Structures are given as C-alpha cells and as structure tokens.
C-alpha cells in the first residue's frame, strides 16, 4: 500500500527486508510463504542481484555437510562426514569464538536448505566437491552455472510470482524507525527520484552484507558500505565481535585493470613466491616450512605487516613472482586452472599470463573479503530490538574469529530463512507501531545536508581518506596506538568532516556524489565500532592480530565483544561465548596457535 503522509511517500508492509540477495531474498521467500504477510524487499541496486556480495559469489562454494548432501540431494559424496564433523571444523577454524548455537543451526540446516533451493529450480553441480583448508571432508559444492547469481534468479522468480511480495530496487536505506523501543519501519532514499521514502513496517530484516568498502580494496562491489550496520547501530542494536574481518592478499594492484577480487589469487594459488619491496621472501618469517602456503589469515597479516613497516612493493602491495616456473608450465597451469574457475567471468587474462612468462611479478595487496563480526542475533535472527531481525554476512557470531570457505552463502541461506520465518511470525502477532515523524525529519536533516550545503568536503576525497586510514589502523594488523588513533579519528570525522560533506551536483535523481556522501557517513560509523571492539582485545586470534599482543590467550580471551551505542558513545562489554558441545582449549600460545 502506498500513500502520502507528512509529505512523504509511505509504503506500508508487514515485513521490510533491506538488501535483496542470498540472505534477503531467502528471507523474503520464507516470510511471504505466509499469504497473510506482506513483504517488501528493497535494495540499492537496480534490482535483485545488481548490488552486493552474492552476485560476486558467482564461483563461490556452498558448504553442506556431506551426509545430508548424500541423503537429501543424492550427491555421491563422502558419507563419513556428519553434522558433528562439520560443526567441529567450524569451531576449530573460528578459534573457539563462534556462537555455537548459531554454528549448530548452520550445520544442521545446510543440507535441508540446499534441497529446498533445488526444489525451487536451483541446479547444483553434483559431480565436483571441494575441501578448502579447514574442511575435513569435501563438502563444498557449486551451482551448475553460477552459485550466488543463480540463487538470486531462482528466488526472484518466486518473489515475482507471489502477490504478497515485492522487490523495489534503487532504494538506499538510510535509517531505521523505532517507536517505544520497537521497530516501526525504515526511511530510504529513492535513487531514481531523490525523494525520501518511508516504509511503515511491523518488522525489519537487515540483510545488507558486510562493510568491505571501509577498505580501499574489496573482493565485492564497492557499494558494500555497511549501511545496515550503521543504521542498526544508530537505532541501538548490539554488535558481536566486530574486530574480526577477513582479508585476502588477492587484489592485483599492478598492472591495473584486473581488479576483480578473487580470480588472480585463485588462478595461481600456492604456486607463486612472494617478495616484499626489499626483495625478501618475507613469508618465511611467518612459516619457514609452508612459506606462502599458509591459511588466509596468516597470509593477510604477513602482507599487512610488510606494508605497515614500509617494505611494500612499488604500488603498495607485495610482489608475487612466477619466475621460478618455466614459461610453458605457466602457460599450461594458467589454462588448466582457468577452465574451472574463471570461464564465465569473460576477462581476458592472457596479457597477465604473458607478463608472468616474461618473468615479471604481479603486485598483490590485501582486499577486504568478509565480515565475521556483525549485528548480534540469536538463532532465530532476532536482535536486541523487538521487530529488528538480521541474517547473512551483516550478522555476527557464527564464524567466530575466522570463516571456513563456503560458509558465507550457507550462512546467508540458513540465517535468511530463519529471519524470514521469525519475522513473519512476529508480524502476525503484533501490530504496527506508529511512525515517529520527528525521526523521519532527523533522518532527512543529516541525509539531505550534503545536497543543501553550498561548500564543504568532497565526498569522494573524504571516502578515499577514510579507506586509506582504515586499512592502516583497523586492517589485519593492529596495535593499541593505531586503534586509539582510529577512535579519535572517527570522533573527529563525525564532528568535523561528516557534517561538512557537500555535493556540487544539486539535482537529486541518481546523484552519485550524494550517494557517496551518505555511504561515507556509514563507513565511518562502522570504523568506529571496529576500533572500539578491537581495542580491548589484548590477544591475537584468527583475523584479529595485535602486534603488541601476539599471543593467542585462551585463558583470558575466550569471550565475545559486544558493542552498542549508549548516549552517543560506543560502549563495549564482554560476554561468555555460547557453548553447546565443544569445550575450548586452555592456555596461551604464540599466534597462529
């Protein structure tokens, strides 16, 4: 239902979903199974799978415990695997910080959800299975043509066919609306017209993914600016272990133009030798035996250390050399490996392979890949705010301190379904809270300010400053000084630069300068939460490496960091890790433990 209230276009619905890809679309499908529940799903992309990380997970895997894969999907897999074995792998890789109730739900529901996707027309590739490091069995599975985008196509078909669900694209969500501590909806910017739009809803599901774009290089699209995190934080939501962010040294910073995330990393993974700007094969300092062939977290920390300590390559990364391989081997391996992984991306990688054959190194830097931390949820996707749900990458806790390969899409599907089902049930038993029009006006005030100002800070320049600052202060390697500086810088940005943002372009429809201004406000907000969460954690674990505390301390630091806004400040408290069946080890040991 659409009408005009208070001068705004108002959409009334039962469930509003922000972000429509793997998690959001799955939530929409599950919520709209109840015919009496109206669902609106909004995205800042022009449609489903036109923004966000799922679409870039085209050649990513979906992790399912093999027993279920075999029994429910009829796939010829290794039946020695079990939900218990998958669970144990997750907890070990998460360095015992996972919320075990969430991890159990992910493991147990992975196969039934995969089966459900299949019943909707999704096609799995049941001939190839993978076991990336950390998985004891081959439980990673691909979609037949693509994985993430195919999921979106399948779910869009269902959503389009249902009278009670609607996808609205080009909607940049700005703020949540609350009333008496309960959710009342959200405010969004209609990018096509530049108008503020109000969604009056009984509950809201946030499924906006990570905040990769806080950092200069991303493996996803650059629109992953933590909008969901920022609006949830402003509304008073709690955050779980926000210091754990996964980086991968896979960004090709030189030669330019192939900055497409994971492909170059995968293509020659394990074959290249890495050198720093001094020509030193620096990964020997981290593992003298495996050298570069260590897990992602150690690689990213090794690379980040070289960059922080001024031993970077010419363009700010490290050199990946193939010169030890004969040129015909490079040629063959390039072709063979590309066949499986890169075939449909359409990029012509031959110039890169030619460079390698000439003996030239490529330069790699860390890109931000995944957020283990996020909005704190329980197993039904509920947050601390009644009526607010979250699922997928924007929700924290399930992966602990590090994520297993293939677990991201599984998280989206399992948690999306959970959030959708519980939001629909919530909508059935409550009534809509009144819209507080002062909140709408307050949202208008901050979001329209860049458009109304006549001079000030350029949004794109500020964004670049923030991302550069964020990678050097809240990147894979941290210490007390950096984190304190990050907190001070976030304060300063919020007081000085953000209120000063201004766009030269004044006409509001699809004004990208304006979009960047709003997104920059959000990434600064996320940086503040990360810095506050990481500062008190004086040990190193998984993706959080403190160079001033390089030990993994299981005696004092097996606890979760919960961050929340209280009176305009980010406050942090600690909570015992939720344990169901695996008791963490004791003792202290040097990182990586």
């Amino acid at each position, binding site marked *: 239902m659409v009408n005009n209230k208070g001068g705004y276009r108002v959409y009334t619905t039962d469930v509003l979903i922000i972000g429509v890809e793997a998690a959001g679309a799955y939530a929409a499908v599950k919520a709209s199974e109840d015919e009496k529940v109206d669902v609106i799903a909004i995205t800042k*992309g*022009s*449609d489903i*799978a*036109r*923004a*966000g990380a799922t*679409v*870039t997970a*085209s050649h990513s895997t979906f992790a399912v415990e093999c027993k279920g894969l075999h029994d429910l999907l009829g796939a010829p897999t290794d039946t020695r695997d079990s939900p218990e074995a998958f669970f144990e792998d997750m907890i070990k890789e998460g360095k015992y910080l996972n919320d075990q109730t969430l991890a159990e739900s992910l493991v147990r529901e992975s196969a039934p959800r995969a089966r459900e996707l299949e019943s909707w027309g999704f096609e799995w590739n049941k001939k190839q299975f993978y076991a990336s490091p950390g998985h004891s069995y081959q439980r990673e599975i691909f979609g037949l*043509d*693509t994985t993430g*985008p195919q999921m979106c*196509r399948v779910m*869009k*078909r269902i959503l*389009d066919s249902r009278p009670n669900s609607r*996808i*609205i*694209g*080009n909607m940049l969500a700005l703020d949540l609306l609350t009333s008496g501590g309960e959710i009342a909806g959200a405010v969004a910017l209609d990018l*096509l017209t530049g108008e503020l739009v109000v969604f009056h809803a009984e509950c809201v599901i946030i499924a906006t993914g990570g905040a990769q774009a806080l950092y200069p290089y991303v493996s996803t*699209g*650059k*629109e992953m600016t933590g909008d969901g995190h920022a609006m949830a934080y402003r509304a008073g939501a709690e955050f779980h272990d926000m210091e754990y962010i996964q980086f991968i040294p896979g960004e090709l910073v*030189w*030669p*330019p*133009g*192939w*900055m*497409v*995330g994971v492909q170059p990393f995968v293509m020659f993974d394990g074959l290249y030798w890495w050198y720093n700007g001094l020509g030193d094969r620096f990964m020997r300092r981290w593992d003298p035996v495996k050298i570069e062939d260590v897990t992602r977290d150690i690689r990213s920390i090794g690379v980040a250390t070289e960059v922080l300590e001024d031993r970077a390559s010419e363009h700010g990364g490290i050199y990946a050399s193939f010169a030890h391989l004969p040129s015909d081997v490079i040629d063959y391996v390039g072709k063979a490996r590309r066949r499986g992984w890169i075939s*449909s*991306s*359409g*990029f*012509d990688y031959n*110039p890169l392979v030619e*460079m390698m054959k*000439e003996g*030239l190194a490529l330069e790699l830097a860390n890109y931000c890949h995944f957020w283990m931390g996020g909005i704190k949820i329980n197993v039904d996707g509920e947050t601390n705010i009644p009526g607010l749900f979250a699922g997928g990458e924007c929700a924290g806790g399930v992966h602990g301190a590090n994520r297993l390969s293939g677990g991201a899409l599984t998280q989206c599907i399992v948690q999306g379904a959970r959030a959708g089902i519980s939001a629909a049930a919530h909508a059935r038993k409550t009534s809509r809270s009144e819209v507080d029009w002062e909140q709408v006006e307050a949202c208008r005030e901050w979001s329209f300010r860049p458009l109304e100002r006549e001079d000030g800070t*350029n949004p*794109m320049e500020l964004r670049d400053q923030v991302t550069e600052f964020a990678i050097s202060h809240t990147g894979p390697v941290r210490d007390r000084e950096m984190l304190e500086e990050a907190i001070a810088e976030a304060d300063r940005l919020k007081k000085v630069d953000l209120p000063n943002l201004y*766009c*030269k*372009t004044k*006409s*509001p*429809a*699809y*004004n*990208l*300068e304006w979009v960047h201004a709003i997104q920059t406000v959000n990434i600064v907000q996320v940086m503040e939460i990360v810095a506050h969460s990481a500062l008190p954690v004086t040990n190193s674990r998984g993706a959080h490496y403190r160079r001033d505390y390089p030990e993994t301390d299981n005696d004092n630091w097996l606890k979760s960091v919960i961050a929340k806004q209280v009176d305009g400040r980010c406050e942090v408290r600690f909570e015992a890790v939720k344990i169901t069946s695996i008791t963490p080890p004791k003792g202290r040991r040097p990182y990586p433990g």
Partner: protein
Amino acid sequence: MTEGIAKKDVIVAKILRFDPATEDEAHFETYEVPKYEVGRQTVSKVLEYIFENIDPSLGYYHTCNRGICNGCVAMINGKAELMCMTESPDEVTIEPVAHHRVIRDLVAVPEEEDRPRRRVTERSSKSKYL
C-alpha cells in the same frame, strides 16, 4: 612491456549527458581521460575517472565490476555492451541503452515501468535488455 602498448596518452570519451530535472534535451560532452600505460582500462574505469576527477554530476551504474550483475549495460560505440567488461577504445562514444527512460546520463530504466521488474531468464544474455 610498457612501450609497445601505449599508443596514445589519452582516451577521448564522448558521453550522452541528460539530467531530466534540469535539461530539456540530451547533449554530448567530450572528456579526455589519461590512458593506462599497462593494464586493462575498461569503459567503467574511464567513467569512474571522469566522475571522480572531472565531473561528479555524471550518472552511471557500476557495481560488480566483473560482468556478472549485468547492471552496467550501455551503448558503447553503438553496441550494447557491459561497461565493466569492455576495454575502452581510444575514442569511445557512450550512450544509455535505447527504449529506456533516462534517469540521469547513462542510468536508464525500462520505459513501460518506473521500476525494473523483469522476468528473470535462465541464462543472462546482453540482448534481453534491449
């Protein structure tokens, strides 16, 4: 490596600009963008350079940057292509796709509806947008 590749030092990009809120009709504007000495400069990269360094009022669609989301389709030298996957020629004309309502410059939505609610086909192909 570098010498053989650099033919010209700029890319000349002619873009059909139109802001329906302030203008009555579309017009072409021409921009000069420094050309990469090595590497792969796509049309998206050319537009990003113009947006960030010359004219921030430019409207264009850009997300996945790897030819999957199919959001950035535009007419490149008269052919409908994905901007993120097309290496820019030295002289390039970029226009929004035909039969679409222009929101700003290269951002356009299907004319029959304000919001794209396309049926999803099994396989993505560029032609379905036209």
